[in-house]
């Protein structure tokens, strides 16, 4: 019977003895590529318990066990390197970008707050925060520099804030510049995610919105994994704490995870949100599957979603009656 091994093709007998052999040339890269090509082959597998090293020695592919291991080590290492470099697919770049965006958001928020506190001592009346405040400080520094045609001129002139010394002013201006550049970077990453999502997952981008779609891919780990998730999982992605609390204890089940940020859900009245989340999740999972497996744009998806949402709205015009507290039935504890 013919078998494939990493070092060559062998013809073996019923007891595993080598009858004929066709060893490959000892070229590391070639052997690595051959080894990778054998991963998916279901045919000509070595029989269970077959001793590859003994066979390699028998057919004179190598002289000694130590040569066998040293060659195998080089080949598998090279193969693993090839696989690792191939692993950085476009969806992995989106995942990195989403995580970078989260880091930037966290950092800009805390730095902006610091800037607000710090500058507040010198011009508490300015009424600015975030990016606007950072831009203002970069532009003027001390409130004494505000020009008369700026809307904040009067407030700056009559401010109760302390006088800003030159050294502090220089420091604050540089600090504000850093904050501004972080805001810039945030816009850049958002633009990158939006355009990448258009290419990689157009259906998901149009159904979920590019940012939410990217976030779903990021939490799932890859587009492939997201496409494999059932829609009920997609519905509660990002609410794992609430979900496990529900599974372990007697907490209510979460209705939505990160998909809450979708305008269809967060602008709907509370009693429809669970139903809409379910409908949306169903369509998102379809969108992810189309994107992963065919890549074609399917314009009927948003229409069908809209139809379904209209139905839900028509069927549930009024909030349900809240059950009286006393009538709440005792829930069974799930844990055995």
């Amino acid at each position, binding site marked *: 019977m013919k078998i*494939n*091994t*990493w070092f060559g093709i062998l013809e073996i007998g019923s007891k595993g003895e080598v009858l004929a052999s066709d060893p490959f040339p000892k070229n590391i890269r070639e052997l690595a590529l051959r*080894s990778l090509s*054998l*991963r*998916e082959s*279901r045919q000509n*597998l*070595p029989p*269970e*318990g*077959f*001793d*590859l*090293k003994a066979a390699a020695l028998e057919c004179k592919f190598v002289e000694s066990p130590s040569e066998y*291991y*040293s060659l*195998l*080590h080089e080949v*598998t*290492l090279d*193969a*693993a*390197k090839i*696989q*690792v470099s191939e*692993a950085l697919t476009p969806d992995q770049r989106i995942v990195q970008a989403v995580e970078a965006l989260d880091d930037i958001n966290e950092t800009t928020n805390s730095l902006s707050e610091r800037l607000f506190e710090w500058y507040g001592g010198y011009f508490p009346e300015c009424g600015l925060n975030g990016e606007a405040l950072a831009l203002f400080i970069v532009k003027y520094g001390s409130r004494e520099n505000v020009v008369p045609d700026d809307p904040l001129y009067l407030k700056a002139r009559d401010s109760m804030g302390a006088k800003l010394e030159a050294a502090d002013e220089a420091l604050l201006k540089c600090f504000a510049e850093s904050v501004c550049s972080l805001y810039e970077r945030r816009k850049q990453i958002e633009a990158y995610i939006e355009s990448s999502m258009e290419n990689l997952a157009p259906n998901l981008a149009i159904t979920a919105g590019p940012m939410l779609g990217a976030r779903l891919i990021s939490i799932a780990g890859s587009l492939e994994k997201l496409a494999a998730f059932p829609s009920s999982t997609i519905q509660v992605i990002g609410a794992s704490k609430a979900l*496990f609390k529900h*599974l*372990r204890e007697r907490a209510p089940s979460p209705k939505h995870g990160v998909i809450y940020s979708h305008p269809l859900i967060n602008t709907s009245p509370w009693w429809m949100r669970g139903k809409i989340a379910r409908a949306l999740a169903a369509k998102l999972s379809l969108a992810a599957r189309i994107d992963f497996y065919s890549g074609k744009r399917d314009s009927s998806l948003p229409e069908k979603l809209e139809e379904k949402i209209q139905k839900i709205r028509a069927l549930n015009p009024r909030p349900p009656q809240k059950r009286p507290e006393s009538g709440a039935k005792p829930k069974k504890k*799930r*844990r*055995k």
Partner: protein
Amino acid sequence: MPDVRTLSDGIFEVTKGKKQLATKNLDPGKTVYGEKLIPVEGIEYRTWDPRRSKLGAMVLKKFNIPLKEDSKVLYLGAASGTTVSHVSDIVSEGAVYAVEFAPRSMRDFIGLASRRKNIIPILADAGKPASYAHIVEPVDLIFQDVAQPNQAEIAARNAARFLTKGGYLMLSIKARSIDTAANPKEVFTEEVKKLEQAFEPRFEILTARDLMPYHEDHLGVLAKLKE
């Protein structure tokens, strides 16, 4: 002078101030994950943190560790190689076939594997042993740390293909990755039963102990093929 006591082939207890688990460093001068290096009479020992390694915890839990200098090991779930590095120290004349599924972990692992000649890195799914059947020879020990819900089945499939007759299986079962909501004790009983009966080949359990206080809700198991 630190005191060295042998616990098992290639596994030592080095006392320098306090008792520490250690192996002889196969890659002298280098550390892998921030562990300490202790030279004693020209031999460099590398301390082994049982809190970061289930195998390390199993040593301290008095498991019999069936490893010798020339053992061949199939290690499923190599991650970034913390434990594999110690196995590589122990089987200095043998080989460790280290299977890992995540490219991200493999990226870290490759640096380690390239410096240690007895490590054979394999980026593959441990649930599909056929995908590395053209690489792996019969082994004396399969160590499994994969934290998958079907880990008993994975162990059996790999044992069928790669474990020699008198070979051993060691694995750690993480209750939370089998069933997040169930009681860990019940999960353990269930999984041990699966190893004994559910798949071919069947295993005979030699030791099964929890890995407290080093790992919470983990069960360490040493088994061999049922005759």
